[in-house]
């Protein structure tokens, strides 16, 4: 009987633990459907190409929709190639790539020096960053009777720090001549899950505001002084929509698809810029970009929207089979040169011409060491 009694005690505990662990691992499991899609596209195509190879990549979820479309279109033209991209998150993407269990990685943040050193140590040669598309973060709000709103970085930081708490605060009113702002409390919403969107948003505030960098900092998850957290863009949008006076940040593509009211942001040249694909693409113009292409988009001027960031593909300069390397290079060439239309259809901003040349230079370095 004592064995049975032990079981009775253990089972509910184990069940509770499994629930948590199962939920953790679900995000990590490979997606069979995507694998199936890419290979079936390949078999349907009639054209002939010499490329062949099975490529496996994993990482950031933000660019996953456009990567899947690109893969579908590319393997349609190159039936010998299959490419699988698993959206397991940027952190997992860097880890898997460093462990050499993927051929390429995807990340919404460029690798830190420490991460890069670990990856280069594992592969035994340089690892290159290849920016693929830009994403922007839109500041969405829900304010009855107000359909245009302009904010600058100082005011945005004050709102998210909880220093500005009413909509008719002079700090907001000064930026919005002619807009009648109600005497209502501001209800702040942020992401509760770790996210590249949060990283872009907090990196921007961290760069612009000393108060922000000393009190909050930047990263994929930060300690928010005020505000309610929603899971994903959808959760944040719900939090904004359910409160008159709500404000929060969402991915630009999500804001565009759902027609949310978004604020124009004053950039470094003092221009108030509405978030859009064009203003996002313009953001990187005039930004000083280092040779290794590890950059944040900060201090945006002219017609650029200031809260933007890139997403990267990570690839090694050695250690790949020649066939695979050729296929990966051909795929990335194709996405950078011919993939803009697909990206724009899905509300991603293509990287500009200047950056495209630098990106292609890094693509050509893939597997240069053999």
């Amino acid at each position, binding site marked *: 009987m004592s064995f049975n009694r032990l079981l009775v005690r253990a089972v509910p505990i184990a069940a509770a633990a499994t629930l948590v662990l199962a939920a953790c691992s679900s995000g990590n499991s490979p997606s069979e459907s995507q694998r199936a899609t890419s290979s079936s596209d390949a078999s349907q195509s009639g054209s002939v190409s010499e490329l062949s190879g099975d490529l496996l990549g994993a990482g950031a979820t933000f660019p996953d929709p456009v990567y899947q479309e690109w893969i579908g279109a590319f393997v349609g033209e190159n039936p010998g190639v299959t490419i699988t991209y698993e959206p397991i998150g940027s952190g997992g993407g860097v880890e898997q790539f460093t462990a050499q269990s993927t051929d390429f990685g995807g990340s919404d943040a460029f690798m830190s020096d420490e991460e890069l050193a670990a990856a280069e140590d594992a592969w035994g040669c340089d690892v290159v960053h290849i920016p693929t598309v830009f994403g922007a973060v839109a500041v969405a709000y829900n304010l009855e009777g107000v359909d245009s709103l302009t904010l600058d970085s100082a005011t945005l930081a004050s709102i998210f720090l909880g220093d500005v708490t009413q909509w008719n605060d002079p700090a907001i009113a000064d930026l919005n001549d002619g807009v009648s702002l109600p005497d209502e409390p501001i209800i702040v919403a942020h992401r509760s899950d*770790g996210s*590249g969107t949060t990283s872009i948003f907090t990196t921007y505030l961290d760069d612009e505001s000393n108060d922000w960098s000393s009190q909050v900092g930047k990263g994929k998850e930060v300690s928010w002084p005020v505000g309610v*957290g929603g*899971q994903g863009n*959808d959760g944040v949008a719900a939090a904004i929509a359910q409160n008159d006076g709500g404000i929060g940040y969402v991915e630009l593509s999500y804001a565009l698809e759902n027609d949310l009211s978004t604020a124009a942001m004053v950039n470094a040249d003092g221009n108030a810029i509405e978030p859009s694909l064009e203003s996002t693409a313009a953001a990187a113009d005039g930004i000083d970009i280092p040779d290794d292409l590890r950059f944040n988009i900060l201090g945006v001027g002219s017609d650029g929207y200031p809260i933007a960031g890139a997403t990267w593909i990570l690839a090694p300069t050695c250690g790949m089979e020649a066939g695979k390397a050729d296929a990966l290079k051909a795929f990335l060439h194709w996405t950078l040169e011919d993939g803009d239309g697909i990206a724009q259809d899905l509300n991603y901003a293509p990287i500009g011409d200047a950056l495209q040349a630098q990106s292609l230079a890094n693509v050509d370095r893939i597997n240069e060491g053999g």
Partner: protein
Amino acid sequence: MSSVPAAAPLTGKRRRSIADPAFRWSLVVASALVLIVLALMIGSTTFDAIPVFVSQGFSFLTGTTWDPGFSRTEITGTYQAGVFIYGTLVTSFIAILVALPVAIGIGLFLTNVASRRVAQPLIYVVELLAAVPSVIYGLWGLHFFAPGVLRPAADGISDSFGAFPLFTGPVISFNFFFAGIVLAIMIVPIISAIVREVFSAVPEAERQAAYAMGATRWEVMRSVVLPRSRPGIIGATMLGLGRALGETIAVALLIGGGTTLNLSIFQQGESIAAKIVNTFQESTPEGVDALIALGVTLFALTILINVAARLIVRRIGDVSGEAVA
């Protein structure tokens, strides 16, 4: 386990000599598997979590700052789980507080009040509720139930009882209360299924005896059915509580992802399981270790509550003079 029934007389001798031990061993393996998996789980998670516990010390449990670092090899961030432990306990407590009376009501209705024709379909419906995936509960709560039904109720409670720190407003779009109520809906089927079985196990003779002495239906339930079923009710509550403590996605959608400690149930917070599911994907290597440490904490919390419940059941059993497993 102790008494093996005699083999059926028609079975051939040779076959029995293989089949019986084989059957017996397959049962032992199946049972042992549970323990092995459990041991592996505890072992590997605790191993990963130890550096975090060591670096944070006791403040891991009591502190309220969660600030992940970026290292691959050591623990550089601050990891304190106080906010998440509070959120887990508060939401689970709200869930049990609401679900238990409802589930007991359903159980009593199905076993002592409703006719068979009413009871049978109702049992199916309640069991159907248990089969709804939790993400559906979460999304339904997020987009409909919380803003449409719970929000006005919360506003009302907060307006009337806002003087108590637990009910202070303003009501935030996602909060402990919303998460707790949706959790309650999720665990009602679990609890009611068990208490229904427990209620129907009350000896018919005792109920009939009470009726014969002129007891009303309510008096029979109060003084015969409920006292008889108390250990079973507590067991069912523990099972429901286990589910509530470990629920991830529905809570993650509704609890509001707060990073500061708010006492009021109408404000945002975070539970252990929700924190894990929310940040696991984008975590740094040391952040993953910290999340595993959170998982170990949840594990320990669940064990603690289960053991406490067993002790309570045993004590009640002693008082009422019944042997309790």
